[in-house]
């Protein structure tokens, strides 16, 4: 809800988009040292998230209720120190990375890729009132106070989820994870209505631009099927700019989960999350006395956001070297 100034700078103009040669982006990325650093950092973060049970050194929720173990500084046993209940901060950070990873992945796949790509293609191809409807709804959805509505939706569903949790636990492969997954799904569902529009808009304008290209017109007149047309000509054209959009929106997306969990409206309290970590560390006085708690739980998150921002910036330069505009 802050004044976010970097609004839709990433869309290509209507005029003259040339599909990039297949591996140009990759080559350019490798050449850029900053982008490589960002990719490495993101990879570390994600690997920590994927392999958190193996990478962590302790159970993230295991408390050690002794005065010595409380707020202990970094040591060989506790690499990032411990928090107020003597829990191992490093393991909590690693598991928080897993929460962030899961949340962003699920929302990107369902929201940006599935809904965004689908609705964007639909709007671009069908045009007319379908296009107008999708665009207007998206505009308004992205315009109303997003976080507010996400909170409203997730609050509305956070009532008695116990029965659902237990039926999932007993009838599916989820087992004990069901307790963590249901609140998680709630915030995913709450975020979805607001996650598709960015990419849908990019896809739509790309489709409009590409359709103007002569080879597409030619292919259409030649009677090439729509699916083939999409697969062979449209998708490759859309992909780079789509990636730019996703990487630019990543930090904001991950922040939704952090914000909700910080407010106590996000993931289950026994699921480590950066929101919960920051809430526990986030008192000025505590920071003054035990800076390691905020630093070690904050810096990984900052680096994660920073890496995505850097990568997004680098991708813009590569995909649209001359300019970016509406």
């Amino acid at each position: 809800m802050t004044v976010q100034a970097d609004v839709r700078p990433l869309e290509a103009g209507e005029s003259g988009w040339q599909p990039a040669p297949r591996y140009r982006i990759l080559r350019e990325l490798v050449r850029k040292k900053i982008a490589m650093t960002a990719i490495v950092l993101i990879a570390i973060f994600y690997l920590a998230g994927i392999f958190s049970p193996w990478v962590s050194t302790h159970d993230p929720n295991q408390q050690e209720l002794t005065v010595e173990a409380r707020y202990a500084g970094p040591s060989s046993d506790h690499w990032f120190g411990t928090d107020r209940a003597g829990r191992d901060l490093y393991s909590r950070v690693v598991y928080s990375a897993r929460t962030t990873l899961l949340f962003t992945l699920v929302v990107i796949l369902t929201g940006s890729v599935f809904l965004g790509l689908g609705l964007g293609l639909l709007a671009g191809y069908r045009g007319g009132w379908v296009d107008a409807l999708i665009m207007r709804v998206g505009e308004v959805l992205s315009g109303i106070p997003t976080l507010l509505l996400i909170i409203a939706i997730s609050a509305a569903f956070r009532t008695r989820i116990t029965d659902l949790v237990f039926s999932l636990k007993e009838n599916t492969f989820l087992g004990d994870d069901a307790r963590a997954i249901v609140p998680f799904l709630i915030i995913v569902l709450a975020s979805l209505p607001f996650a598709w529009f960015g990419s849908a808009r990019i896809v739509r304008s790309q489709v409009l631009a590409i359709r103007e290209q002569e080879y597409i017109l030619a292919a259409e007149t030649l009677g090439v099927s729509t699916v083939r047309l999409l697969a062979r000509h449209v998708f490759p054209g859309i992909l780079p700019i789509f990636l730019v959009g996703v990487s630019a929106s990543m930090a904001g997306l991950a922040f939704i989960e952090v914000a909700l969990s910080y407010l106590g409206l996000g993931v289950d309290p026994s699921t480590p999350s950066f929101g919960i970590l920051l809430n526990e560390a986030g008192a000025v006085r505590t920071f003054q006395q035990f800076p390691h708690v905020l630093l070690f739980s904050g810096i990984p998150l900052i680096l994660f956001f920073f890496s995505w921002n850097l990568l997004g910036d680098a991708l813009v330069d590569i995909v649209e070297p001359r300019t970016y505009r509406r």
Partner: protein
Amino acid sequence: MGQGLAGYILRRLLWTVPVIFAISVLVFLLLRLGPLDPIESILGQRYTEEGAERLRAKYGYDRPIHIQYLKYVQNLFQGDLGVSTRHQNFTVAEVVIPKIRVSAGMNVMAMVLIFTLGVPVGVYAAFMRGTFIDPLVIGFWLLIDSIPVLISAVWAPWLFALKLGWVNLSYEGVLHPNIILPVMVMSLPGVAGVARLMRASIIQVETEDYVRTARAKGLRERTVVVSHVVRNALLPMVTVIGLALPGIFAGSLFVELLFGIPGIAREALDAVLAPDFDVVLGLVLFGSILFVLANILIDVAYGFIDPRIRITATRGG
């Protein structure tokens, strides 16, 4: 510009009505059919069926839901946004307007700060491109952009109030120096965006014909840069101002929470959780209308700047 543009605006405005209507219905249903109950929050542990019934009747929550909605719309057209159940006897307007004023004040200041920092940074980076300074400057502001408010709202008061003793933290009104720290915390993350846009804009303008012509005419470099490049590069920034317009009235939740500022975002959070039906609905409607109007304004502004976009936009929707 005449006929086409007017028709275009008209069509967009016509689209706005059903969309906002749909959103109001959706939010209304979400609130009324959801499990959160304002009567429960008002009565707390003193809840009795009888007392709850009386309160439901008082606020009209006992009627069928479509009647409730029609009643709401009817009141809306008479300029009545309803009453707050969290602040009994206060109307929605009385609750919301002072808070919008606070948030608007802070956001305007934040925007000025963002632009006064972001534009020069972008210009500088653009003219330094090719050197290591360009990525360094942009990278620095991207780093600032990456620090969540949740974290800066902890270290900034610690550093500036406790360590250095430069500022006080109590909220004393929008026009009081104590507001400077929260405004800084709120705006610094936005600088990177403006700087990047400005940088890109400059780079584009540099390649335009009229700049080349100006250079070819042998104008002094300074004149070229100031009166041609920077001036024209500033134009797309209109978009940013326009897009930030609804944000001006949105407030920043965490800055308001952590610095104790009575802004609209905090009110909204409390209203959603209470829940305070009419306040939430009023805020959502207000926000959507503002946003839609701002969007149309931007498109129109762009139509003036670049007729090509107007035409394609007309075609597209």
